[in-house]
């Protein structure tokens, strides 16, 4: 898929200092499922799926998701953070084949 690793992040349009904000994020990723052979045995191979999502704000990790193949294709995650200061909010997605995808959004106060 040519679009693998595209990341989108959504935050509210206006954020006040100190506000707890919910964030939505999506990454284009196949999240490969387990395949089985004709006898029903799991085909052993490195399945490509995102197994870690790391959210950092102002350089500090605030939330992480450890994830499995029970998460949907093109996974969507949401989480909260307390917007204390202006600065970058980063979401980093790591997959089992070494892929790393990142989205970032600048938190500013109106």
């Amino acid at each position, binding site marked *: 898929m040519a679009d693998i690793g595209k990341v989108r992040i959504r935050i509210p349009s206006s954020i006040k200092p100190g506000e707890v904000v919910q964030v939505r994020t999506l990454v284009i990723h196949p999240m490969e499922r387990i395949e089985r052979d004709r006898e029903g045995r799991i085909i052993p191979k490195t399945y490509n799926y995102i197994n870690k999502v790391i959210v950092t704000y102002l350089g500090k990790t605030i939330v992480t998701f450890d994830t499995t193949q*029970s998460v*949907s294709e093109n996974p969507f995650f949401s989480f*909260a953070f307390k917007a204390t200061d202006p600065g970058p909010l980063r979401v980093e997605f790591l997959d089992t084949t070494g892929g790393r995808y990142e989205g970032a959004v600048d938190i500013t106060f109106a």
Partner: protein
Amino acid sequence: MKIAVRASRTMTRRTMLGTLGVIALAAASGTLTPPRRAGAQPLGLNESLDEAMTRVFGSRSIKDGGSLIKLDIPLIAENGAVVPVSVRVDSPMTPTSYVKHIYVVADKNRIPVVTRVTLTPAAGQAFMGANIRLGETGDVRAIVEQSDGTLWQVKREVKVTVGGCGG
């Protein structure tokens, strides 16, 4: 290669989101880094629910979190491939009292453990959401580990539907 990622275009986003009342600003970048050294064992294994619960929580007792945890998930999933779930836990999220982990477990999945969310007080709110896969009708549980080490859970049955016309 995992580097087929372009900087995202933002020119259309405002129009697309015009009705949403929010803006989205996102940049995407892709780099190739060596795989992280995983722990001894991945979080998700092809196992039974009992095996998963024992592996992850050992013999620790899990209390009824009905008054603490709000698990939001459709009771009927139109499609098991994408089931939106969110968990909200009543917690002050202070350094002395916060929610450390939220687990989502799908009892009937071949890989029952869906995700383990690790939170810090900086999250401000014990909240998580994700789209998950459900192989068949069954319970989905949210298990919460507080900073004092106590475990709490709630569960709800989700029915997975299919179309009616065979084929």
